């Protein structure tokens, strides 16, 4: 994959072009009520050591028992990554000492992971798609948390996260720019969220990336890579790659050599730096955990999980293109967030009617998304209900209002409903009834009540046209010489009619009356 360097992705150095090669290990927290090997809660932000069982604190004689839901989540995710599901996998111990690692080892999967090779299709831009290979996915325990800034001489250890299930998703080194890396993580997060196996919340650490970066001159073999640990936002991932690639190019151009090492990205200083303290020669002494048996299940179990999987983003996108005639890019934008996609479909199908699916897409990806942005919400989280968008589109379609008036209607909905409806995702389901039952404003009612209806009565429009023509003989002459003046007349008529005149009717009448 990606064997030929793409010229557009190359980074210019002082001595020529460089290609950056990126692979990623993503740690995704598995969505589950309890931990991977204990019955303690996974809820974020509890009191110190409140979510800790005897097993999580590695009390003497404690034994792990695996959480079946975490296994199911890993399989679902593997299926979502089009990956090989291994019917037999093994849990190993990774041995090292650290205060937030109570057992003195992390239970992980080393030689035999639950999920093998797969692939993720990534839209980098409206015109560019790449495939990123998945090397493997394995289940492992999260560590606890050490707080170092509470005291000058001591660290405080909280084991609430200790033992929470993580999926480590390892990509192949298939990315060639920070944009590709950004798009990959975004897409991966979308898939995880569709499946419901990880909430993708990077601020709470549900998704962390270890980014492997190397550079080479085009056509050369892979360079020495550095691993940037624990980058916790998509923006930082892109920044870290940029600065790390620049750093490595600088060293190579100065005749230096890249040391394989673990580095940390400092977003404040905008640089990566070596984690010397972690560089001590590691020898993890992996061996199969004798407290656990091999993890085995049959194909029927996998098939049953597969049958219950929701429609995944790629399939949804293909269906949107096919069923709703959307351009690929528009479809891609809508399916990037599952709730937005559901919202879109609810609007398209609202009330069982059929309506212009492309127009609905434009409204949602345009005005609604813009409003959502200003509120820091997703489309579905806003108080604007799919039924209201359907209503607006229907009003335009049957000629009741113009597209311009439609924007006013939306503005009224935004202003009026703000306090009446609090945005809730479940309201999508209830939108059929809720949108028109009086709990939110009905666009048609707004138009009626405020007299915003488009004037299609040609008599009324003709009167306005006549009045404008009579009042502006000089402009009439100009227009007849220069037909582009027509716009001025249209504007005047729209002003006269309070914007309600059907623009097409105004156009036609003006043309015939002006004789142009």
């Amino acid at each position, binding site marked *: 994959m990606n064997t030929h360097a793409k010229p557009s992705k190359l980074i210019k150095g002082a001595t020529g072009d460089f290609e950056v090669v990126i692979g990623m290990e993503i740690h995704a927290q598995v969505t589950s009520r*309890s931990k991977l090997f204990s019955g*303690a809660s996974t809820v974020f932000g509890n009191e110190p050591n409140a*979510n800790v069982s005897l097993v999580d604190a590695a009390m003497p004689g404690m034994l792990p028992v*695996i959480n079946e839901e975490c296994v199911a989540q890993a399989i679902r995710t593997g299926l979502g990554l089009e990956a090989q599901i291994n019917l037999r996998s093994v849990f190993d111990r990774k041995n090292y000492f650290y205060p937030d690692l109570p057992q003195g080892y992390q239970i992980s999967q080393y030689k035999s992971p639950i999920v093998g090779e797969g692939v993720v299709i990534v839209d980098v831009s409206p015109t560019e798609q790449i495939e990123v290979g998945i090397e493997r996915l394995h289940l492992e325990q999260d560590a606890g948390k050490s707080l*170092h800034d509470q005291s000058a001489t001591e660290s405080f*250890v909280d084991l609430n996260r200790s033992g929470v299930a993580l999926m480590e998703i390892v990509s192949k080194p298939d990315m060639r720019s920070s944009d590709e890396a950004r798009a990959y993580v975004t897409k991966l997060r979308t898939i995880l969220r569709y499946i419901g196996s990880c909430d993708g919340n990077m601020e709470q650490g549900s998704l962390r990336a270890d980014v492997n970066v190397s550079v080479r001159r085009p056509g050369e073999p892979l360079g020495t890579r550095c691993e940037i640990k624990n980058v916790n936002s998509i923006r930082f991932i892109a920044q870290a790659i940029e600065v790390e690639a620049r750093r490595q190019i600088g060293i190579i151009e100065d005749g230096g050599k890249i040391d394989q090492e673990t580095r940390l990205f400092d977003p404040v200083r905008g640089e990566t730096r070596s984690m010397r*303290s972690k560089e001590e020669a590691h020898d993890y002494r992996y061996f199969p955990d004798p407290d656990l048996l091999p993890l085995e299940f049959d194909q029927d179990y996998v098939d049953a999980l597969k049958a219950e999987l929701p429609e995944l983003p790629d399939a949804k996108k293909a269906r949107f293109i096919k069923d709703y005639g959307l351009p690929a890019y528009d479809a891609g934008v809508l399916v990037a967030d599952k709730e937005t996609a559901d919202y879109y479909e609810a609007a398209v199908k609202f009330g069982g009617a059929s309506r212009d699916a492309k127009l609905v897409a434009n409204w949602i990806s345009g005005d609604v998304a813009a409003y959502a942005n200003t509120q820091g919400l997703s489309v579905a989280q806003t108080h604007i209900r799919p039924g209201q968008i359907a209503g607006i589109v229907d009003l335009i379609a049957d000629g009741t209002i113009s597209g311009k008036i439609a924007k006013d209607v939306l503005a009224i909905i935004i202003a009026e409903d703000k306090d009446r409806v609090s945005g809730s995702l479940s309201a999508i389901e209830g939108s059929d009834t809720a949108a028109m039952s009086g709990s939110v404003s009905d666009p048609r009612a707004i138009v009626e009540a405020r007299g915003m209806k488009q004037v299609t009565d040609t008599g009324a429009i003709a009167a306005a046209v006549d009045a404008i023509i009579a009042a502006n003989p000089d402009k009439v002459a100009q227009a007849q010489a220069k037909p582009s003046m027509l716009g001025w007349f249209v504007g005047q008529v729209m002003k006269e009619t309070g914007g309600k005149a059907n623009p097409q009717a105004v156009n036609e009448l003006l043309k015939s009356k002006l004789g142009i």
Partner: protein
Amino acid sequence: MSVDQATVRRIAHLARIKVSDEDVPHLQEELNAILNFVEELASVDVDGVEPMTSVMPMPMKKRRDEVTEGSIAKDIVANAPASEDHFFVVPKVVE
């Protein structure tokens, strides 16, 4: 196979056990006695033999995804040499 003194020190550090200089020679001797004892295993033909992974072959039991434990922070830190506000306290860790 046998270990030299540098290896003894390396292993001791991996295992986080402090060894004094005078400990090293006799530790080396004892470890080599054990390694010598297990040496004959090298002669066993193990071609095509699966390493034992479960003593009694059976499917691995699984837990239901339920919160059944926790909210015992007091018990969790009760035996700790140092704790504060239900945190374990350790000498400062430099990252």
